[in-house]
């Protein structure tokens, strides 16, 4: 079924769109022979495996622009690489709050929407969102909510609260997000705080809750949950709704639930062009390509996330188009909150707290100095001892 649809989609694409594309981008024809550096989340594009369309190969075929496609695990490490890694990317895929952070720090540039005519397919409710109010810097790629994956074989109860991730009965079988916002978000949901609180005490309380959870956590991971969940190694894991289809296909015992007792996180992942991009025109052509309903549909079918284009959604197979996990009902969306960029002080606090949660209870300088001092003392002791010994030998 999937393969058949993919084949039709690619055929439609090849037959119908190539001339249209040439006409559309006529005003600024992208140069051939350049290589775009695209930096995306892992497992976030149709890559040609399992009979899907190979989006990057297709783009190269149609435009002659090569794609150097690399992946990151979370917004924060993408930010680190961009801010300090000396890497110049042409296209990146940050989430909502990260888009506003990047805008604030001038790490992304304004897009020329004349080169992205397919932006017209983006539904109005996904334009001009809070993170990019005038919609100058970003084009939405996917959206979704966070929920809990669980293995029905071992977790028999109803999963409707984030608190189950703190349940001792599942100690050692729980996975947790390996990035600060998502991890703290869950703690904040339980405590009833806002994700975007600026109150340090609320952040400290959330950190305390996460530290309480730590002994129960098997591992802090991102995309490794695929293997760990499908092999039965772990039983409970919070992750993005979009991955439900893939995980259930891997192991039919896996269920997915969006907690109703507390709120959840609603996110939009967007496409941006960093300020340091070397090939802006070509990057815009790439973004435009991704916005084509056929391509967007192929991507969504492969990765399982939700598309902000109604036109693309129409092209999806029915079971995906109407899946309440991928396109949750209004009641769920109402009970959600979006991450916003945090003010600098809060951001620094979060970084420190996150490092503390992951690295264990905080130590103090005295201990460290004592350790270094002990090593140094041993060294000096040996040197002195040898000198004395040598003197004695000489006598």
């Amino acid at each position: 079924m999937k393969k058949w649809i993919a084949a039709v989609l690619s055929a439609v694409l090849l037959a119908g769109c190539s001339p249209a594309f040439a006409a559309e981008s006529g005003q600024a024809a992208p140069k051939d022979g350049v290589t775009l550096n695209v930096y995306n989340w892992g497992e976030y594009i149709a890559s040609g495996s399992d009979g899907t369309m190979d989006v990057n190969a297709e783009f190269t075929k149609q435009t002659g622009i090569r794609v150097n496609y690399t992946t990151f695990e979370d917004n924060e490490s993408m930010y680190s690489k961009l801010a300090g890694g000396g890497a110049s990317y042409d296209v990146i895929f940050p989430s909502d709050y990260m888009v506003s952070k990047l805008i604030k720090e001038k790490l992304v540039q304004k897009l020329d929407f004349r080169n992205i005519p397919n932006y017209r397919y983006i539904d109005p409710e996904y334009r001009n969102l809070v993170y990019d109010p005038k919609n100058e810097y970003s084009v939405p790629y996917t959206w979704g909510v966070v929920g809990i994956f669980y293995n029905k074989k071992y977790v028999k109860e109803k999963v409707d609260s984030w608190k189950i991730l703190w349940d001792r009965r599942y100690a050692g079988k729980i996975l947790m997000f390996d990035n600060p916002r998502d991890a703290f978000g869950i703690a904040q949901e339980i405590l009833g705080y806002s994700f975007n609180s600026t109150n340090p005490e609320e952040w400290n309380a959330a950190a305390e809750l996460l530290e309480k959870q730590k002994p129960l956590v098997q591992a802090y991971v991102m995309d490794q949950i695929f293997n760990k969940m499908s092999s039965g190694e772990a039983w409970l894991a919070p992750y993005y709704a979009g991955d439900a289809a893939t995980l259930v296909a891997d192991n039919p015992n896996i269920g997915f639930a969006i907690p109703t007792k507390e709120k959840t996180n609603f996110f939009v992942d967007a496409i941006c062009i960093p300020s340091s991009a070397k090939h802006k025109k070509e990057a815009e052509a790439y973004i435009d390509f991704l916005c084509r309903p056929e391509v967007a549909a192929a991507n969504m079918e492969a990765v399982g996330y939700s598309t902000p284009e109604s036109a693309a959604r129409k092209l999806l197979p029915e079971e995906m188009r109407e899946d309440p996990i991928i396109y949750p009902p209004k009641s769920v969306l109402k009970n959600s909150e979006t991450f916003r960029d945090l003010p600098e002080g809060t951001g620094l606090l979060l970084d420190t707290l996150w490092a503390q949660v992951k690295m264990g209870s905080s130590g103090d300088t005295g201990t460290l100095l004592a350790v270094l001092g002990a090593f140094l003392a041993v060294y000096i002791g040996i040197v002195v001892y040898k000198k004395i010994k040598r003197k004695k030998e000489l006598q």
Partner: protein
Amino acid sequence: MRALSRVYAVLVYVFLYAPIAVLILFSFNDTNVMSRSVWSGFSLRWYRQLFQDRMLLQALENTLIIAVVAAAVSTVLGTAAAIGIGAMNRWARRVVMNITNFPMVNPDIVTGVSLMLLFVAASRFLGGASLGMGSLILAHITFCLPYVILSVMPKLRQMDPNLYEAAQDLGCAPFPAFFKVVLPEIAPGVVTGMIMAFTLSIDDFVISYFTSGTTQTLPIFIYSMTRKRVSPEINALSTLLFGAVIFLLLIINFRAARETGGAAKAAKTEGGGTR
């Protein structure tokens, strides 16, 4: 006692090879990613998929280019350096050798981080050039150089210093004298250094991780594979790499067998093998 020691040795070797055997075995596993450790029939599909992976082939190409360039440059630069250092006075030699040893003593992660800071600063200075092949090659040459120098220097010390002077006295210009007299004498050290540089470069992950920018080398590709939804492709890749290594080792071994003290040198080769 002999039987006991034999059993012990076998146990340690089992420990060393069990994981590798598992990797190789499961590369032929016809599984639906359900689990890494359930056998469900023989298949070569992961090998097929591997060869269709453009990013992988690109990473392999990058790795080989970097290794060849790094090995070549570090061998030339390192051999010249060894000759020059040999001619220095005691004090200068000590200072230079201490700094040369530093990258070998220093944890890889610190070397990687420090080079990253350098390259980022340089790229800002040069107007935003991205880290990539260039910075990787520079980094690899840097961590290979000490190994080349240290494998050439003992050979130089063994050489009769009068040979070079004699050649010059007989009217040979410095460069021809070097190629005709010195190089043949130190050639084993130079070749060992080059092979070391090549293998270190191919295997390096930590330093590359920090200096790669947008470029992927094979180890970096493998790393990103382990962070994702892993498919047995990674096992197929391991098997192929292991096969290639055995093949290379056989060649090197034939070469080393002709030299004395092969084992000691081999141990040296491994001075930083798991970078």
